């Protein structure tokens, strides 16, 4: 178990390194920072001063290492728009994003899990077909289309809810509903296939054969085992709590991290984009690591098998 844990943590560290490297590479590829900041008209001495000030005249690998140092200290530059620390600008928006993504996550699980289990238990009946048809729609309807259609119905036609903005709890309903419905479709599909896989296993037949009531077979034999693959997808959703709302926030003008990212990209406010990229990368890696460790804890086969495979 200890080795499994260390391996997972090592993997996560490599991924973090890759994400920071990606940020460094695209930052350097975006052009000479001296020209970007000072403009093309500045005198050559100003460029030289700027470069030595920011260490841009040093070899690239020293710059690379320094970049790691800066990232680890949270020194990520200032927003070009209002000059405040980019970290602070992003930090202010995080609670607003979580205010819609966390309720949406609960909605996804509340609808998706029972729907998926239902579809698997009533496989090939009209219930299954109905649930799966709706679920396919969740995969193929883009969130901005669903969001706009919901806004068209509930805000424009019926006038029940505001179509965008923030401030009251009513503003949060449509974004939560949009993300919740789409995520529920994903969870339902995963849960269904996980359940079907488990229900086909010999131990389910054995449990039935020894005379257990079907209800008990499902609750105490099928569900716990089907929970394992479902855990992965839910873990991915927890990791994307911050990242998953980019489009939906823009549809409903919800002032969260996603909306900030879109405006920052449009204005090329590189410091803010970089902070969001790193922040989302770290949360994703952390969530994946947690799921991996939970996995190893829930399913002992996994940690031994992975070790034998040497990965």
């Amino acid at each position: 178990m200890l080795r499994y844990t260390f391996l997972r943590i090592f993997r996560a560290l490599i991924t973090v390194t890759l994400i920071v490297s990606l940020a460094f590479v695209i930052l350097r590829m975006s052009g000479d920072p001296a020209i970007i900041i000072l403009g093309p008209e500045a005198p050559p001495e100003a460029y030289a001063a700027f470069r030595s000030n920011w260490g841009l005249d040093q070899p690239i690998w020293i710059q690379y290492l320094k970049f790691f140092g800066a990232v680890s200290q949270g020194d990520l530059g200032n927003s070009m728009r209002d000059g405040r620390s980019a970290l602070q600008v992003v930090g202010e928006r995080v609670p607003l994003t979580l205010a819609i993504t966390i309720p949406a996550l609960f909605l996804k699980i509340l609808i998706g899990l029972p729907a998926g289990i239902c579809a698997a238990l009533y496989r090939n009946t009209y219930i299954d077909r109905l649930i799966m048809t709706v679920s396919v729609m969740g995969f193929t309807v883009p969130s901005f289309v669903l969001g706009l259609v919901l806004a068209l119905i509930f805000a424009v036609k019926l006038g029940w809810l505001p179509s965008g903005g923030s401030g009251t709890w009513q503003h949060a309903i449509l974004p939560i509903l949009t993300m919740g419905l789409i995520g529920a479709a994903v969870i339902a599909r995963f849960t269904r296939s996980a359940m079907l896989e488990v229900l086909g296993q010999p131990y389910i037949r054995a449990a039935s054969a020894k005379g257990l009531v079907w209800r008990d077979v499902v609750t105490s034999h099928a569900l716990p085992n089907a929970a394992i693959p479902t855990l992965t997808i839910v873990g991915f959703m927890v990791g994307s709590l911050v990242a998953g709302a980019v489009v939906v926030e823009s549809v409903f003008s919800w002032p969260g991290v996603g909306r900030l990212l879109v405006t920052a990209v449009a204005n090329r406010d590189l410091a803010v984009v970089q902070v969001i990229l790193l922040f989302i990368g770290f949360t994703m890696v952390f969530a994946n690591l947690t799921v991996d460790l939970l996995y190893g804890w829930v399913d002992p086969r996994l940690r031994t098998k992975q070790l034998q495979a040497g990965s």
Partner: protein
Amino acid sequence: MTLELNDPKSLAEDSGSGSVFTAKDRLTAFFETWPPLVLFALFWIALCAVVVAFAPLIAPYDFMAMDLPSRLTPPVFFGGVWTHPLGTDELGRDVLSRLIISIRISVVIAFLSTLIAATLGVTLGFLAAYFRGRVEQLILILIDAQASMPFMIIALAVLAFLGNSLTLFVILMGFYGWERIARIARGLAISANEQGYATAVRDLGASPWRIYSRHILPNIASTLIVSMTLNFPEVILLESGLSFLGLGIQPPMTSLGNMVGYGRDYIQSAPWIMLAPSVAIVLTTLSISIVGDWMRDLFDPTLK
């Protein structure tokens, strides 16, 4: 692909000719091998293919032509006129013409991107399968890293830092989904390597390049094509999402997501501007997913 699509047809005819019952059974058999939903999906895909091939000929107007006096005309059956079947937008541009050009651009981008992703994925997957050891570990780490980040965030970051151009955008979209294809290609190549035919050509002295390109690739192509098919609608969704945000395809060019993005400002007064491309996106992604799933069920012997 046409060959594989013909397979079930010949099957249907066989079962039909073997039957002593009436034509009605033939019809049932036909719909059993060709479910109505799949037929509809294939019909929509064929329609899209025609649109992609002949877009400028089909479009009744130039997609950029403005006609200010007839701006915001609603579609036919909603108080509009037949000259603009799907109505016009805020600048009097014909929505149908814009839709046709948009479908072309979105589909072409998705197609090129999927091709790039497939090439990248298959190459890396084969390299991992051939070299094993360190190279494989490195590729697996790259796959894991790619899979652990939401692609939209990476795409937005790259667009922010490097600016936007059509070439860059297509290449960027080409990075979407390579990790899934690489994973599948690696797995399939490793198991193909252990089969008799690969060993046979290797013992005959064929070069690794020849073994992989002429023997293993054709043998695993069907599975790869299915996974490419399933990648395709996701690229359309990603592209239209980015274009919707105003960060993908830039005007004066148009794409499906772009149209929705602009139509959104007129959701109250002229919802058709936004609804027409939305329906096109949903129908296209839905059709390709249906056909992809259907092909997967057809090819995957474990599901039968």
